[in-house]
């Protein structure tokens, strides 16, 4: 603990500055891999290490920001509600797609994690990574993972899905617009949805609908699948 920085103001200020720099660089380069969050994390972790300031000092302010994740997660119901009439026409294929995709995400992580000898806590941290960060990190804590690792995994899912999405659709020959949207939203949450929105309105709507449903499905199925496969 660095005494003279013993105030929440420091962590909040550093987060604000770092995120603004991140947004600026992201706008300038327009590269998904340079997301504002990635840049902000590099800046903050870099400067804390450089100035020998520990996480505890930073998190005095950080925890105040994190607190607002709770209300933000509740509000994820709003985009879901706005898109829910899109479900009417092809509810069955969409819901089955989301459930299969979510289950596959969870199971594949557990199996590969075991194959490559990852520790139990790391596997549990990666299980929720396909869902949007608000849900993935809550769920991670709930099932015995480490939220920070989950956030890193969630970033990989989002950014790689955004970058590879179009090629994945080509490789798997997925042409249906709804299928493309559901695939992007279920596995790459909001960052994948940004790509889906570039592709078109149907893709974008489907993708944003899939974020919340995939999150809910994962919250309910992850603990069961973990018990079955890791118990």
């Amino acid at each position, binding site marked *: 603990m660095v005494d003279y920085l013993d105030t929440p103001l420091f962590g909040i200020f550093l987060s604000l500055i770092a995120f603004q720099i991140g947004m600026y660089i992201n706008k300038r380069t327009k590269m998904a891999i340079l997301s504002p969050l990635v840049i902000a994390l590099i800046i903050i972790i870099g400067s804390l290490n450089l100035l020998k300031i520990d996480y505890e000092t930073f998190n005095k302010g950080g925890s105040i920001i994190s607190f607002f994740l709770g209300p933000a997660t509740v509000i994820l119901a709003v985009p879901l509600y706005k898109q829910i009439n899109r479900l009417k026409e092809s509810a069955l294929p969409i819901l089955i797609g989301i459930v299969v995709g979510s289950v596959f995400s969870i199971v594949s992580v557990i199996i590969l994690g075991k194959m490559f000898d990852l520790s139990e806590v790391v596997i549990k941290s990666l299980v929720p990574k396909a869902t949007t960060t608000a849900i993935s990190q809550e769920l991670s804590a709930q099932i015995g993972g480490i939220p920070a690792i989950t956030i890193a995994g969630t970033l990989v899912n989002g950014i790689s899905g955004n970058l590879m999405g179009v090629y994945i659709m080509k490789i*798997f020959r997925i042409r249906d617009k709804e299928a493309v949207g559901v695939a992007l939203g279920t596995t790459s949450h909001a960052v994948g949805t940004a790509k889906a929105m570039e592709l078109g309105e149907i893709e974008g709507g489907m993708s944003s609908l899939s974020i919340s449903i995939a999150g809910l499905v994962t919250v309910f199925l992850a603990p069961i699948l973990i018990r079955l496969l890791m118990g």
Partner: protein
Amino acid sequence: MKVFKELAIIIGILLFSYLIQKLSQIPVPAPVLGMILLLVSLLIGIVKLEDIELVSKFFLDHLTFLFVPSGVGLMLVWGIIKEQWAVIFLIALFTTFLAMGITGITVELVKKLREGGPW
């Protein structure tokens, strides 16, 4: 002053969810429970979109910023993953690739089956 009422609705739902979660011990995070509660309230019309429009727009527009401090937590756990970070990264990448393909294929397949089969 509308923003106070809006915040009260969201925080109220979250508090209620937190109490349900504590009392029932169901393994669903309170904020996710709150999300379900808000969705149901919107669907049955107890809460209207206009009742929470300012607060929901603010949070949805600035959501990513809220993950910054938790992400910084990576510096605490780096010791746990530093020897395996490349494997972890590749697993995350590979499972995203496969899961995305399988999700899309499933949606197309169910659609085709429902239309009387692809054959």
